[in-house]
């Protein structure tokens, strides 16, 4: 989480750089923990483990994106409803003025 900390709002580019940095740190931490606990016997197992970490990271990102998309769709529906309501109100006000 410290990787994403900033006083100012990060730009898209800065956010992407920090995400890559976050992933690299995560990978290093995972490999270190695995190495200390004798998870892998050789290089092949180490590469497989690293690949699994990549896959899990990508999967989590995708799930997150899907959840965000769902939230965005819900909000967009509400925006539409709200705009419709205000349009009707403006139209009615205009009609009242005409009278």
């Amino acid at each position: 989480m410290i990787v994403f900390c900033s006083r100012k709002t990060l730009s898209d580019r800065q956010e992407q750089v920090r995400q890559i940095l976050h992933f690299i740190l995560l990978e290093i931490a995972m490999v270190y923990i695995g190495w200390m606990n004798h998870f892998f016997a050789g290089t092949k197992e180490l590469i497989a483990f690293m690949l699994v970490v990549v896959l899990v990271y990508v999967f989590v990102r995708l799930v997150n994106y899907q959840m965000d998309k769902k939230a965005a769709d819900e909000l967009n529906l509400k925006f539409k409803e709200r705009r419709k309501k205000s349009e009707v109100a403006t139209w009615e006000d205009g009609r009242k003025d005409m009278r």
Partner: protein
Amino acid sequence: MSIFQKMKKRNKGGNIAVKVTIEEIPIDQEEKLILRCHGFNEETLKLVQSIKDSKNGLAGYLGDEIHRLSMDEIFYFEVVDNHSFFYCRDQVYESHLKLYEFEKMSCTGSFFRASKSVVLNADKIDYITPSFSGRFEAVLLNQEKITVSRQYVTDLKRKMGGRKWNLKSLYTNSYLCILLFWRGLLQQPLYIVRFSIQKRYLMQMIELDFFYRHLLQTFP
């Protein structure tokens, strides 16, 4: 029905649901607006705020000119290098307000904090899209794009009348239940109605409670 809804109904020519009394006073007396209602809710606050806004307005500086702006005109408020600005449909006005001051002033309206330096008007959002970086991008009615931080999306949902309980609070409550249970404080099934949890969350809590009860019985 709130006083705001009653007034709307009256304006639309329906039955008179709220009585409006206007009293003319001499010029030497102070003008006063008294609102007599059964309850004080968000809509009443909105009404009071809009009256205050119409009286005061916000000062926007454009070069040497000072413009009076209403809250409805403002798309968003941003602070850039310690200078604050009101962004309207086509114009940008400088302001002397601090971000927290504007946030405090606009909290009862449709404004919400969108990021560390932006307070955005939810009524001016055309649509919102998620991005892979975990943030949201709001496209405004003037096609301008504003980034909405993930942490503030809950505020937006709340403003739009969405659920007030986010996942974080649900987890916190779940942990609370587990803690209470493990400490042996609860001898009966959980009734956490006092937390005013929505029905579906309450069901999840009860399921969780039974699950931990089962676990305790299996591994005493």
